[in-house]
Structure formats: structure tokens, C-alpha cells
């Protein structure tokens, strides 16, 4: 009975939930935005090159000379990565792979939610390069993911 009640409550809440998006659903919209900022056309080749590029930079008096996207995501990112510090596995960066939503424990398709992609571009570019990525670079990365 309890289970049934919970199920009923969940079902009635369904329309309120954001519909699960397909992998890559956010890519098109983001690329359009980068284009509106003057970037494009985007190249998977350039994205691939940038993926393993190291940009030495200084932060708070410390030099960083070994950081690239592959540090955590692997190269090519079609295989799972591993977070350098926490050891947590990071799902491959392909449109068909899934991350795990920590909250619900459910599978979460890659590049499906714009906000998530924007958040991680910001965090990871700053961590890796010491600066944010340009719209061109972000578009190239997305083109690269799409090509995998």
C-alpha cells in the first residue's frame, strides 16, 4: 500500500519534472549562442587538438605546466576518465554515454542540459588553462564531442 501511494505520488508529479533530454541535446543551442558572439565555423579537429593542449599558467604564485582536459577525462575521451584528486570515475565524453545523477542515482545523458555544460566549461577551462575558454574554443570542443 505504501509503495502504491509513493508510486501514485510520483506519477502525479511527473508532468512537473523536466523531460529527460537526449544526449547532445544542448549542443545545438550552445553553438548558436557562440555564433551570436561572433565565433564559428567550428572544427572537431581544432577541438581535438585543444583537448590535449597544455597552456602553462600561474595562479597564486604557483606555476601549472601539466594540465589539459585529458588530465581528468582521458584522451581520447571515449573511455572513462578519473578525477585526479578524488579518484571518482568520470563517464566518457561521447553523446551516447551517461553520467550518473548523484541525486537520483539515475543515468544522465551527456551534454543534455545547457546549464550543466556552461558550468563545467567555466570551471574546467579556468582550472586547466587559468582562464575561461573563448566561444570559438567551446564550439570546437562541442564539435569534437559530436564527432566521437
Amino acid at each position, binding site marked *: 500500500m505504501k509503495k502504491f501511494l509513493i508510486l501514485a505520488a510520483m506519477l502525479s508529479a511527473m508532468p512537473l519534472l523536466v523531460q529527460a533530454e537526449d544526449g547532445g541535446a544542448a549542443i545545438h543551442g550552445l553553438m548558436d549562442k557562440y555564433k551570436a558572439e561572433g565565433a564559428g565555423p567550428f572544427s572537431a579537429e581544432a577541438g581535438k587538438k585543444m583537448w590535449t593542449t597544455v597552456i602553462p599558467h600561474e595562479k597564486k604564485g604557483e606555476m601549472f605546466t601539466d594540465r589539459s582536459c585529458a588530465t581528468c577525462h582521458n584522451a581520447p575521451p571515449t573511455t572513462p576518465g578519473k578525477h585526479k584528486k*578524488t579518484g*571518482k570515475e568520470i563517464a566518457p565524453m561521447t553523446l551516447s554515454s551517461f553520467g550518473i545523477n*548523484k541525486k537520483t542515482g539515475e543515468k544522465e545523458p551527456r551534454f543534455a542540459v545547457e546549464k550543466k555544460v556552461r558550468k563545467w566549461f567555466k*570551471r574546467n577551462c579556468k582550472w586547466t588553462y587559468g582562464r575561461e575558454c573563448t566561444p570559438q574554443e567551446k564550439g570546437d570542443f562541442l564539435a569534437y564531442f559530436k564527432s566521437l
Partner: protein
Amino acid sequence: MRKVLLFTVLMMFSHQAFAEDFFANLLRFKGVAPVKNDLYEEGCSECHYAYQPGLLPKRSWEKLMLPDELEDHFGENAELDEEDRVEILNFLVENAADTSFYKRSSKINRSIPDDVVELRITEVPYIKRKHQPMTDKYVKNNPKVKSLINCNACHREIDKGIFDDDTILIPNYGYWSELDDD
């Protein structure tokens, strides 16, 4: 009257199972408050367990959540949108150890000297003392634990704010209450 109150409070929790856990623990006030906030879970659980706010005092959360601090969060970038940052900060501060009457939160709070802003739960004197038996073999050299920051690797009821001995299962070793080498 009390029934009405209880009913109202119950209605505040949309998730029935969560409400049950909440009350089971609330009645004991033993662990830390099992409060939940979706935005917090989303923004702070990507790299490690989303620690209950009751594990650190207000001043610690306030410092941890400064934009500059988030940009260099233990060597990582944990930046958030400003809107999200403020909401998460409020959630943490409202439920911090020094606003809680739960037993473990009070102990945590009392063990930290007033002039210290501790950013690590694992460095809080009370927590440090409690984990003295957790030697390298259980933590660092245990591939399923790796670091003491992974609380949920051992504390299996931590989502409910419960830390009792009989809920501690150390991966590769077993229930702490049944191990007798400390």
C-alpha cells in the same frame, strides 16, 4: 493542536520515505540533521559526498562559499552561478552546526576554538579524535575508501544523519562494531 502541527510539518516533506527518516532521527536528536536541498545536492556532490550542513559551523560555510574560495576550492574549481551560490550558502548557514541542537553537531561546534575557521570537516578536533582508529589500512590503502573525506564509504546511514557504530561498514573489512582491533 499538536496533531495539526505534526500534519503540517509532515506535508512539508513531499517524499514520504524522507519524512520517515527525518522523524526517526529527529526523535533521537543524536546524529546531525538530515536536511536536504536539491540545489545543494546538484552543485556540491559532483566531486564528493554532499556533506550535511550540520557538520561545520556557519563561519566555515561562509568562508568556503566565498566566490574566490570556490574558484580555488582545495585546488579545484567549484564555481557556481551567483544565484545558486547564494541559495546554497543560505541553506548551509541556516542549518550549520552552531544552529543545530543535534548531539553530533553540538560536539563538532564545541570542539572548534572560537578563533578558528575550519574549512575541513576532517580537521575538526572532534571528528579527528573519533577517527584516530582509522589507520591507513582502512582508509588510504583501502581502494574503496581512499580518503577520509569519503564519509559515505563507511557511514552507511549518513544520508539520514546517523553515525552510530552499528551503521559503520568499512569496505573490505566489515562492520566496525564487529571488528575488535582498535
